[in-house]
């Protein structure tokens, strides 16, 4: 019973795991009948609009709200001082990131604004439009202060220290070192080195950040409808910082219009909304507009990385040495902290390769820009771009084809479990099998021949390859050991209702990845019922088991295993009741397609609905001491490995117009090993969506700043994103190396695409430019940068 049969080997009833089953909750979405936070309207609801700082750094001498309060429909204006007595400040550090520091942060700052777009006052009005009208009439007396903008100079003497109590602008620094790096470089046959830049991005969820908080003074309960990935975490945050018992806070997230990590953080303006709801004891709604999303959603990936790689005479990597610098804004973001991205970079560089000597330093500095924090594939696209950029340089220096160079250096498939030079523990990866599969998919010799032929015609095409690892299924080693109240465990409650239908309530959440779909598949198979009989409940702290939510690719691997174990437990409970009703041993029975059947013969004995009817309405007919627990909860947490690493490899094929610098994407491929694939339809679309997010990073996306710290974005016209016309078709293949930590064997799949795509695009562009000896290493690879590399513009 407790065994998942390979779904492709049999076609028995309820074998849903591994099949492309459409998601149950898509139908309402295609009819526009989902429920996003802004769709919820409550009696006496009021709206907040924020006054936001136009200065990168300024002291707030005073805030005059009188004129704003005169606007008809305006109810209150709150300043930082008004909220100060109602809210505990937070300091976003993690104990295991040794030496990390940050400053106390409040919902609204009391005396100083530290980035352009920081909320400094909140206007509450009957409508959002009126609130916005009144924002223009709040008079804030700013006294501009010198700003620290450029991360390269943030630690230099004379650079303004943003938080004088901290002594300097250093948030965190770590060196991850193993082996004898200097000796290896001294003995190297070839050394390559380069400096890479990844641009400051933002996630640009199409549904902006949204919150509707309601405080009932009678019941003393705070209910928060929130577009978030982590409702239980937010429940704890609201309780702790608004000084409420955790049990009096309920966080509900129904449909979430995109998250990608943007919606897993604590935003000061959202805490302000909850505080205002508590003060005013009525529903308060805040929906960010696009401009304030650009200025106040977290940014990410603002890194400069110097890297070196040493290779021996056989073309084998002997050492990697990198120096990473990142600017994270004026505060580390609560509670995950803004040091994790840099920490991931030093953990992940070189990840796919078999080498011995490693040194990686990250330096995380404060500056007066929008705070950065975890965004889809945290640190991975940076580490992969550096690693794969150096690998292509090393292959060229060694005179080897990039594929041959990778084949000589990838970790061998049979060599696990093992630990990487960066200290990462790998249970089982499939780099070589993935490379072989990729080469078969792209037909490597044919593509190379086409590339050569077209070059002769003055058409410059490039093929870029990028191997990667991805960290999924995180244990408490990610956040919990550092003191953050972020659950690495997750739970699922499965119950059989009187009509034989099944409800599964899970702590993992849905933002479009298909969480509800995969939980439904797993529960239907684990229990043995038609999938149509299963409903899934997510995103409500009052009705789901406590859990972490959906982030770091943990939904399927952690939440899925909890669901599977819970379903198996309910099945055992049902069979115990069935045994008593049918005068049979429970072991001689099974539950198949919603019927109690004889194990072995498959002969139907009784519908599950009949069993449920007897349990709920005629329990008097059952033996008095018979347990009839048709609802079971199980939890799952990984224990043997801190993370379940996955791996994969991508290839990009593109054409560079050497006259205009424009890149035309022709095709993209990815082979990905996320362990057991629960639903190929969903996994493939996670990979494709992730790849396009990575392509956006490589070609378009950047949050530009003026030297004085002004954010130079007025609308989506200033922050380019991938649109349908420019994107390629993407072919996805799989190798499956299930994790043995769980019965389900699933690892995460949601970030692999984003992890590898920028590196593949970079290598493809540089492959196209090879005849000119030109290279681009700073993302985004805009036409201007490509023309500059070609020497056609300064």
């Amino acid at each position: 019973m407790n065994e998942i049969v390979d779904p492709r080997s049999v076609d028995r009833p309820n074998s849903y795991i591994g099949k492309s089953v459409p998601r149950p909750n898509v139908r309402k979405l295609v009819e526009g009948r989902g429920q996003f936070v802004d769709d919820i309207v409550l009696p006496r609801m009021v709206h907040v609009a924020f006054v936001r700082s136009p200065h990168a750094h300024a002291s707030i001498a005073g805030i005059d709200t009188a004129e704003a309060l005169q606007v008809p429909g305006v109810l209150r204006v709150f300043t930082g001082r008004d909220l100060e007595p109602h809210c505990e400040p937070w300091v976003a550090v993690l104990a295991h990131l040794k030496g990390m520091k940050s400053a106390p942060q409040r919902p609204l700052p009391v005396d100083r604004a530290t980035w352009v777009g920081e909320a400094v006052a909140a206007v509450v009005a009957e409508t959002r439009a009126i609130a916005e009208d009144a924002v223009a009439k709040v008079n804030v007396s700013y006294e501009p202060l010198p700003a620290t903008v450029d991360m390269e100079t943030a630690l230099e003497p004379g650079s303004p220290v943003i938080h004088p109590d901290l002594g300097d602008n250093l948030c965190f620094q770590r060196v991850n070192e193993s082996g004898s790096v200097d000796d290896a470089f001294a003995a190297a046959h070839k050394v390559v080195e380069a400096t890479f830049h990844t641009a400051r991005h933002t996630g640009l969820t199409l549904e902006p950040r949204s919150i509707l908080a309601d405080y009932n003074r009678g019941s003393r309960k705070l209910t928060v409808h929130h577009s978030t990935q982590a409702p239980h975490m937010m429940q704890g945050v609201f309780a702790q910082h608004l000084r409420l018992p955790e049990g009096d806070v309920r966080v509900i997230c129904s449909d979430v219009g995109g998250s990608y990590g943007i919606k897993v953080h604590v935003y000061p303006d959202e805490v302000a909304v909850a505080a205002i709801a508590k003060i005013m004891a009525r529903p308060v709604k805040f929906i960010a507009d696009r401009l304030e999303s650009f200025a106040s959603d977290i940014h990410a990936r603002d890194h400069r990385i110097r890297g070196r790689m040493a290779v021996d005479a056989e073309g084998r990597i002997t050492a990697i040495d990198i120096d990473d610098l990142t600017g994270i804004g004026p505060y580390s973001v609560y509670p995950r902290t803004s040091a994790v991205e840099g920490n991931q970079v030093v953990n992940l560089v070189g990840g796919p390769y078999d080498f011995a000597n490693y040194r990686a330093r990250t330096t995380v500095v404060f500056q007066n820009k929008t705070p950065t924090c975890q965004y889809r594939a945290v640190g991975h696209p940076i580490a992969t771009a550096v690693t794969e950029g150096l690998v292509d340089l090393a292959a060229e220096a060694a005179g080897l084809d990039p594929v041959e160079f990778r084949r000589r250096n990838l970790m061998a498939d049979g060599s696990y479990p093992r630990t990487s030079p960066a200290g990462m523990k790998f249970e089982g990866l499939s780099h070589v099998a993935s490379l072989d599969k990729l080469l078969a998919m792209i037909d490597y010799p044919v593509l190379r021949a086409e590339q050569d032929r077209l070059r002769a015609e003055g058409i410059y095409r490039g093929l870029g390859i990028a191997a990667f690892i991805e960290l999924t299924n995180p244990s408490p080693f990610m956040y919990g050991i550092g003191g953050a109240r972020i659950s690495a465990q997750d739970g699922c409650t499965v119950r059989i209702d009187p009509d034989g239908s099944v409800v599964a309530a899970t702590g993992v959440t849905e933002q479009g990845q298909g969480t509800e779909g995969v939980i439904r598949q797993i529960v239907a198979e684990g229990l043995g019922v038609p999938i149509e009989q299963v409903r899934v409940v997510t995103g409500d702290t009052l009705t789901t088991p406590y859990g972490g939510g959906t982030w770091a690719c943990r939904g399927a691997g952690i939440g899925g295993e909890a669901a599977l174990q819970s379903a198996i437990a309910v099945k055992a409970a049902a069979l115990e009741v069935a045994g008593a009703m049918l005068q049979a041993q429970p072991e001689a029975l099974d539950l198949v397609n919603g019927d109690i059947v004889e194990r072995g013969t498959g002969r139907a004995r009784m519908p599950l609905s009949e069993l449920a009817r007897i349990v709920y309405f005629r329990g008097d007919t059952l033996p008095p001491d018979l347990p009839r627990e048709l609802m079971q909860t199980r939890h799952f947490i990984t224990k043997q490995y801190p993370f379940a690493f996955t791996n994969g490899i991508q290839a990009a094929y593109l054409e560079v117009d050497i006259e205009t610098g424009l890149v035309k994407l022709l095709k993209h491929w990815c082979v990905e090993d996320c362990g057991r694939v629960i639903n190929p339809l969903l996994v493939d679309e996670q990979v494709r969506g992730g790849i396009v997010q990575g392509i956006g990073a490589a070609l378009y996306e950047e949050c530009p700043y003026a030297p004085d710290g002004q954010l130079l974005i007025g609308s989506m016209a200033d922050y380019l994103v991938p649109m349908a016309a420019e994107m390629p078709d993407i072919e996805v293949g799989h190798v499956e190396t299930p994790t043995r930590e769980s019965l389900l064997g699933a690892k995460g799949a949601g970030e692999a695409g984003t992890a590898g795509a920028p590196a593949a695009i970079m290598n493809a562009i540089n492959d196209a430019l090879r005849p000119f000896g030109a290279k681009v290493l700073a993302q985004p690879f805009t036409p201007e940068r490509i023309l500059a590399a070609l020497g056609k513009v300064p």
Partner: protein
Amino acid sequence: MSTHLDITLTVNGERVTRRIEARRHLIDLLRLDLGLMGSHAGCEHGFCGACTVRVDGAIVRGCLVLAASLDGAQVETIEGVSDSGEIRDLQEAFVARNAAQCGYCTPGMLLTAAELLKASPAPTREEIREHLSGNYCRCTGYHAIVDAVAAAAAKRNGGVVR
């Protein structure tokens, strides 16, 4: 000049009369005045396409059209075309192909795709991509959406669906 105007229009086949602020945009009329929450405000600058609806048969950005200009107009939203069954095949194709993830862009994407299939019954993948190029989707990477639109077009033409 008054800051409010009276308008009468038809929304999803029903007559609607409202006194509205002159600055009211169509997307706010639909969502705030009529409770039609299927059309979404994504950027309110006309870039993202999430608020795409039909006015007198043509798709428009709901965030760029002033409601005051719609006296006498016929407006159709995702709710209307869902109830009429007009785009059921496209919606089925989106469900089958998992061409919607978070679902926020989906209503606008569907109305844009429906317009393409009306004008061009057998579009190529490039034509589909070009036509959808004003609708931002952060989740899917567009490939599945292109597949779904192509499948719906093929089915309308009696062709084989992949």
